């Protein structure tokens, strides 16, 4: 990491701290986090997966909505670095995806096909519990710079705080409610992508970009824009 990105890193944390103060959109916050990983760290693509009440990991945000990337992240959550990090609560580094064991065959195939050669999965941890993972993918093989991993783990911790609110951390019931709320927002975002895809006659990925641009230019949360598209009170 050079000096410029260090300054940018500080700016990012400052922006995140601002976000956390008041009423905020968790999905927006997490999106800023993965975009920051891509822009500031040595990372080609990033995504955050959260566990639902049955312990299944679902992708909540990623740097691209391209279906192949989304599918690959989910494969990693079935048998790959992502689920391993989630289960162990530890960072899982994969410096060479090409030479991983065969249990990860599907994940390996999907990752290599998209040009990814190395990956790190970091746990979103709260004391003993792991609520999800942050996944960083790189086009080049090899270990990630240690500074990058430190920054990424800090991002992951901010994400955890963002999801849980520090006040309610002790109550496990609230924890699962808030996790579920974040996952439900994602459902509505997917539905809204479908709505915009139809009304604007564009592919699903492009629909997401339109929604996001609208939310940003109107200073609105992505989740609330999605909810209004789905209940048809907003037309794009």
């Amino acid at each position, binding site marked *: 990491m050079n000096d410029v990105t260090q300054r940018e890193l500080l700016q990012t944390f400052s922006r995140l701290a601002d976000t956390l103060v008041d009423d905020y959109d968790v999905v927006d916050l997490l999106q800023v986090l993965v975009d920051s990983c891509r822009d500031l760290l040595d990372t080609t693509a990033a995504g955050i997966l959260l566990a639902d009440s049955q312990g*299944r990991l679902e992708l909540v945000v990623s740097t691209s909505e391209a279906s192949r990337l989304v599918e690959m992240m989910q494969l990693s959550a079935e048998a790959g670095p992502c689920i391993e990090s989630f289960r162990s609560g530890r960072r899982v580094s994969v410096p060479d995806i090409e030479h991983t064991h065969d249990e990860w065959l599907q994940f390996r195939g999907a990752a290599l096909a998209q040009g990814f050669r190395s990956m790190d999965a970091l746990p979103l941890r709260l004391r003993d519990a792991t609520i999800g993972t942050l996944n960083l993918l790189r086009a080049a093989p090899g270990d990630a710079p240690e500074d990058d991993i430190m920054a990424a783990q800090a991002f992951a911790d901010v994400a955890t705080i963002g999801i849980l609110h520090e006040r309610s951390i002790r109550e496990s019931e609230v924890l699962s409610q808030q996790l579920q709320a974040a996952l439900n927002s994602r459902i509505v975002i997917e539905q809204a*992508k*479908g*709505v915009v*895809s*139809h*009304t604007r006659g564009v592919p699903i990925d492009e629909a997401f970009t339109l929604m996001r641009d609208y939310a940003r230019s109107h200073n609105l949360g992505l989740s609330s824009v999605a909810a209004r598209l*789905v209940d*048809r009170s907003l037309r794009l």
Partner: protein
Amino acid sequence: MAVSASFGSAIETIERAPDQPERYCEAFLSVFPITGAAVSTIGEVLGSETLAASDAQSARIDELQFDLGEGPCWDAMRSALPVLAPAIRTTGPKKWPTFAQSVIREGVSSLFAFPLTVGPVRFGAIDLYSAAPVRLSDTQTKQAGAMAEMVSRHVLRRALTSIGEDPEAGISAYSRRLIHQASGVVLAQIDVSADDARLVIQGQAFAVGKSMMDVAQEILDGRLRFTRDGSRIEVAE
């Protein structure tokens, strides 16, 4: 207005009784000037079965139609439109020669059938009969149609559950995403809620013997489209 008050409570009765078809009959009897009501599934999707009938005559009207393969419930199901026969003694024999003859002999004067449909899937009808000749106004016809739509969702949900179709079973997280996206496309195509759009996909999948995932993919690829014409929803491939 008294009529709309009773319509409101009838809607509530249906809403609160997703698993009690006999309550649907009560709801129709409480709003419309009829003698009896019956709710039945007919045709290939869910088979032919009377789910509830308010009296023996209503049950008999449905049975006759199952056996004869003709009658207002078949027409309503096939067309996805209400079939109104306020004067079955004069109009019935032309449309349904055998069926009309039987019900006229049994003292039925008016018959109305409303289709059970979810999206493009048509799987039954509600038959209303009256011993004395009656007409349904346009408002009453619309109200009965709206009630039949609610009943349709309950009946399909219940049927899919009883068949043991767990829509989540064996579906990966990635597929769930596609199903949510396809629900969005469908709700925009035919102007329904997100929950109903999902049920439309589930019903369509069941009716054509495909997985929800496959149907969702077809919707997203534009190979399968739903269109609305009034209350009728069609599917185009």
